[in-house]
């Protein structure tokens, strides 16, 4: 994984030196910056240097920081870890708020559409969620800003949060991006819930539950849902991973200081240590969430929990 990230990042055209100096750079200036940053070393040496540092918890120092500091003669260097930490916390906060709203919302909608399947309600919900997942994120974001910030000023349209804000202020400012992301991720989870439940409705134990005279709601929630959990959990994990790694557009629209913005800015100036660290975090998020999903799937299945 680390090799893939390192190679991909190094394949980007140009490097930090050419980007920062622009078109009129002299070869000497480029070479000097490269020398300062260690970019004159062969790629393999740089990879192992980076890998060794990362394994010891040292993600390195941002090129931008190094360059800035050395030019001004400063001594206090901010590490990549220090740079990423607050941004990552913000991203996790946004993902957390979104998940808290979206997951129960999507699962409830999935259950309701399965219960009233093929009715007008079911169709309306499917059309609604599919339209929201099909629209570009910035479009959804501006629609929400229009209705919830401009016409009815419920939430602020800018989400520039700071570390010393109170929790309620943060929550208030985070609401609009969270709602936008909710609209983006709901369709996937809702439709999987609906499909997984409907898939089970023909099974003999559901027929048995109906023949016990149970209400349709109880049949679905008590008899179908527990057996449909595994696919639903997996889709939730996939969407949570997306919330951590793929929300650049929404962050930009709402000026939300998350890790996505940092990532894009760093790619622009070829700030390799930061880019690599972000990639590693994204990869780790995917792996950990999928691992968690697998563990939860096993826990939700009595056959795996209690072997014969």
């Amino acid at each position, binding site marked *: 994984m680390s090799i893939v990230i390192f190679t991909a990042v190094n394949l980007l055209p140009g490097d930090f030196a050419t980007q920062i100096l622009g078109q009129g750079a002299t070869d000497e200036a480029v070479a000097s910056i490269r020398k300062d940053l260690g970019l004159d070393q062969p790629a393999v040496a740089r990879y192992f240097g980076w890998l060794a540092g990362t394994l010891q918890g040292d993600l390195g120092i941002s090129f931008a920081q190094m360059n800035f500091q050395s030019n001004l003669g400063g001594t206090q260097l901010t590490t990549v870890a220090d740079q990423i930490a607050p941004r990552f916390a913000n991203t996790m906060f946004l993902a957390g708020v979104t998940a808290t709203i979206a997951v129960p919302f999507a699962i409830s909608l999935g259950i309701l559409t399965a219960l009233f399947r093929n009715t007008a309600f079911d169709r309306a919900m499917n059309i609604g969620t599919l339209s929201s997942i099909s629209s570009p994120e910035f479009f959804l974001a501006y629609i929400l800003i229009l209705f919830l910030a401009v016409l009815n000023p419920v939430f602020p349209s800018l989400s520039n949060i700071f570390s010393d804000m109170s929790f309620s202020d943060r929550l208030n400012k985070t609401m609009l991006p969270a709602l936008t992301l909710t609209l983006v991720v709901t369709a996937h989870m809702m439709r999987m819930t609906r499909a997984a439940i409907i898939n089970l409705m023909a099974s003999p134990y559901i027929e*048995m539950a109906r023949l016990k005279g149970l209400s349709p709601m109880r049949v679905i929630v008590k008899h179908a849902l527990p057996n449909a959990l595994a696919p639903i959990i997996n889709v939730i994990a996939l969407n949570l991973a997306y919330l951590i790694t793929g929300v650049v557009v929404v962050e930009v629209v709402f000026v939300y200081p998350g890790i996505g913005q940092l990532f894009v800015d760093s790619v622009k100036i070829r700030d390799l240590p930061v880019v690599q660290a972000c990639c590693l975090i994204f990869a780790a998020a995917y792996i950990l969430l999928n691992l968690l999903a697998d563990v939860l799937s096993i826990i939700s299945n009595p056959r795996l929990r209690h072997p014969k």
Partner: protein
Amino acid sequence: MTDTLLKVRGLKIEGRSDETWNPIVNGINLDLKKGEVLGLIGESGAGKSTVGLACMGFTRDGCRISGGEVEFDGIDLVNASAAVKRGLLGKRIAYVAQSAAASFNPAHKLIAQHTEAPTQHGVSSRAESEEDGVELYRRLRLPDPENIGFRYPHQVSGGQLQRAMTAMAMACRPDLIVFDEPTTALDVTTQIEVLASIRDIVEQFDTAAIYITHDLAVVAQMADRIKVLLKGDEVEEADTRTMLSAPTQDYTKSLWAVRSFQRPAKPKPAEDAVPVVSVQNVTAGYGKSAMVLHDVSFDIHEGRTVAVVGESGSGKSTTARCITGLLPPVEGSISFAGESLPLDYRRRSKDQLRQAQMIYQMADTALNPRKSIGEIIGRPVEFYLGLKGKAKRDRVNDLLNEIELEPGEYFHRLPSELSGGQKQRVGIARALAAEPKFIICDEVTSALDQLVAEGILKLLAHLQDTLNLSYMFITHDLATVKSIADEVVVMKEGRVVEQGPKAEMFVPPHHPYTDLLLSSVPEMDPDWLTDLLAERGVDNIGDAAVDKM
């Protein structure tokens, strides 16, 4: 009013397929008194289950009641609202499904599913119904009744699940229970135990029941009256003894006569004859730890049928996998016509592979649904015999003729366009296509109706006579053994407990396990179960008896 509990008049049910409604049931009448047991019998597609469910006011998705009336204790179930029906289902009318393993929710413990109906219908509290559940488990003679309810369905055996499901149906002490083939999926020794338990508890609580099955001998033990169905129509109805002794309709008589097919015994093979297949001291297992087969040996001679019988899990199919080389044995040897075969099929020559073919239990899953019948049979013809073009087509046509399917009509059909019996015939033709000496038939008739199964057995017998084939016939059905076997091998827990010529095997004295198997096969005598229980006692039948050995 009389004591009529259920009254069905002119019941018509339609099923939806290809955008049109086709009749499934065409006007059935049915009366059931309180405490009475009615047997519904017929072949698959006769509409038994559909009628049974309609008696509960329920139709499966894609079906609808298109006419007639169903009246339960004065309540019109056809026009009743969903809420009224929900109030009755589970409380006054209960259902016992064919496959308890599939009909228990895998996500909940047995007792939680047991208490659901009583608590939801407000009949009793959770604690009360749990206590009652334990009592019912005890009455149904489930082992460890106090704790078995706290297991998940997958932790309990099939026969035990079926009894737990009967207990669940009894939870609200309903007036009517619909039993939909409750013992069809069980071994004979397990079946007898479940039958005895069901009959007992239905009598104890004076519950009326509709007992659906395709097995005449079973229904004879359970029902007061029998109704015979054929393709959605009623054939006849009479009380059990009259029906068994004097059926009036030809169809019923043909059902009764199915078990009469019997092949004449063949002379014993010569002492020095080389067996076609010889299994010697085979021990095999899956993975490294547990061995499934222990020291299994038997011979199969030319032109003869060896029936391997035993319950599920006794190692019958594993033996077949060892012979075909799919599962190389850990110890022992397999030889073919005196020549020792490599144990792994990958090291056998094409000719060695050709000589032994297999026919499977589920013709549905054993035939590639995307290939036409001609392609399915043509593949081994080309692979083993190297025939192409017209020669291949002629050979396939010959094979289709041999299995009594008209080539012109069936060559281009897909498996989904055939009936169950026809699919099994195609399976036979595919095995014959390789021109083998030896065919393993793995439960080939278990999934078929009796009349169809008889046709398949006759075909196999005919092919054996004309082509001098040897069969290894895996089955759990002793009636099948009686009709076509020359030799019998009885297996239990991966060991051969007894083997010998058929004539000797059906005459005592037996190994106790063989004796138990033989005595557990229901007979067409309404007193059979009662007599057997009186003779052996409830503790000496079924799994309990197996465990004692």
